[in-house]
């Protein structure tokens, strides 16, 4: 088993990073850290996707000298998907950051538990 894992070590690193990012996104109470965790999670799944498209000893899928031999190039599809994934990740990050700024303006803290308590307190006073 360890041998198999060692052979596909890029995949292993990718899933470990995914789990780290996932745990940070779900459990860290600081909003900024959550956003970093989210980014790590997204890039990790992108890394897994890229490594699934990699073929040992072949070059990037850019046709050189008109040679269209399959044996020479890697898989182009995962790269295309990952490009989309990166765009999605940066868009989501921007929105989350904008939300963070607004929340900080309002409650002066980044701690989600604390913000939640403050919001409840505020509502109770109304």
């Amino acid at each position, binding site marked *: 088993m360890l041998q198999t894992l060692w052979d596909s070590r890029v995949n292993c690193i990718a899933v470990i990073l995914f789990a780290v990012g996932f745990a940070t*996104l779900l459990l860290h109470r600081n*909003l900024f850290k959550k956003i970093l965790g*989210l980014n790590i999670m997204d890039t990790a*799944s992108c890394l897994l*996707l890229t490594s*699934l498209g990699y073929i040992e000893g072949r070059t990037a899928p850019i046709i050189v000298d008109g040679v269209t031999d399959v044996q020479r190039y890697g898989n182009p599809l995962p790269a295309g998907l990952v490009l989309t994934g990166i765009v*999605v990740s940066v868009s989501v990050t921007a929105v989350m950051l904008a939300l963070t700024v*607004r929340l900080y303006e309002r409650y002066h803290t980044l701690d989600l538990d604390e913000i939640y308590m403050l919001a409840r307190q505020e509502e109770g006073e109304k």
Partner: protein
Amino acid sequence: MSFIANLPLFCIVASLVCSVISSVLNGKLARWLSMALSLAVAVCSLLVLGMVWQNGEPLTYLMGHFPHPWGNEIRLGILESFFSFVFAAVMFLCMQGAKIALTQDLEAGKRQFYFVMTDLIQAALLVLAYTNDIFTGYVFIEICTLASCGILMIRQTGRAILASVRYMIFSLIGSGLFLLGVTILYGITGHLLLPSLHEAAAELWHTGDYRIPLTSSICLITVGLAIKSGLFPFHYWMPDTYGCATPCSSAILSGLVSKGYIFFLLKVIFSGFGTEVFYGSGVQNVLFVFGICGMIFGSIGAIQENDIFRMLANSSAAQIGYVYLGIGISPEAGVIGALFHILTHAVTKPVLFLSASRLSDTAGGSKRFKDLQGSGYAFPLAGFAFSLGALSMIGIPMTMGFMSKYLLAVAGLEATFKAVPTLLALALSTILNTFYFARTIIRLYTPGTPLSSAAPWRAQASFGLSAICFSLLNLGAGISASPLIALLRHGLEFFGKVG
């Protein structure tokens, strides 16, 4: 190929283009554009439905020059076109009914952005209904998430922003898991288009290769979409979110967006994995258990609330539980029950949210039950619409809610081991539903002193039109449900077929 087959493509592109154009219009024009768009999409979907029904078989429409497994394509089937019709029609009625509330709640210079977001949601729902490609689904799920977040936070109170942060976090966890699932699935099958995936997954299942990755990718995709639609352990964002958003957003989110995700999940199950693989993997049992938990805990949460919007939100969590219960029971009868319940909820929940907002307006904007006392008299139409919706959620005969519970119960009886838990859960949750909805209705019609008098005539008219439409739909489909069930059954046969 008849010209009608091109309509879904035109609808999708028109929604995207309208969303872009709306950003330079003013608020009023943008609203007209958005409503016209929804209406046009609804009409087009009906035409497509008619065409597919006549043809008698689903049609694949190439998005580009290349068929599957190479290029994107969309699939026009009965369920696809019918649900996109329902989504568009409900969207139209939501915006029609919440006309006044929207004008009040939106900041003057940013009003058009709201309609940019609704147009994008419209586009995303259309694509989720029609697409035949799992990765396209992912992209439009993200559009849907961001746009839903946009319509949530447009009110910009501290509470609304906090709620949208929580919504975003749960949604992003969901889409992260979904993307990982798609990645693993691609790694073991090499396909992304549902028809090719179907063949590859069936083959892998029979040979037994890659059993663990296949199962885990099914788990990840299902769990990701379940989180996004708010299944039980992940429903905590719901009360907050629906409680403080503008009512139109709550209606769209609970009635349409979460249903769009569930519909896409069903699509992936039926035309992607295939029912044999999905129901062989055992994931449906997990959905079944969490569905039951959702039904019961959602209702208990609703009983504890003393804010009408939060109560409705908790009730939404319970209704999502019903849908997943149906999916968990069996691929035929259970899923028909689930689909019918999606329709029920899409027709009922928006009108509950809208009429609750009208009622709370007559009580001076307060959402507490004790302030709402007697508001049913101040705005009789809203009181009537709310009561009818509530009765439908309880499951009184002659309403859609009754039919969906009946279908779920019948489906449960057919399944050997799941019969007793299904019936018990249905009974218990009906009792709980009755408790909190009856309490609310009694509160509404207890004589009291509402703060302000009846709403202006225009507000009544725009709300009244949509409330009457929703109520008629609800009663009509409840009284003569058999054509609708026949349509769903016929559509479901189509669903698994490779076109």
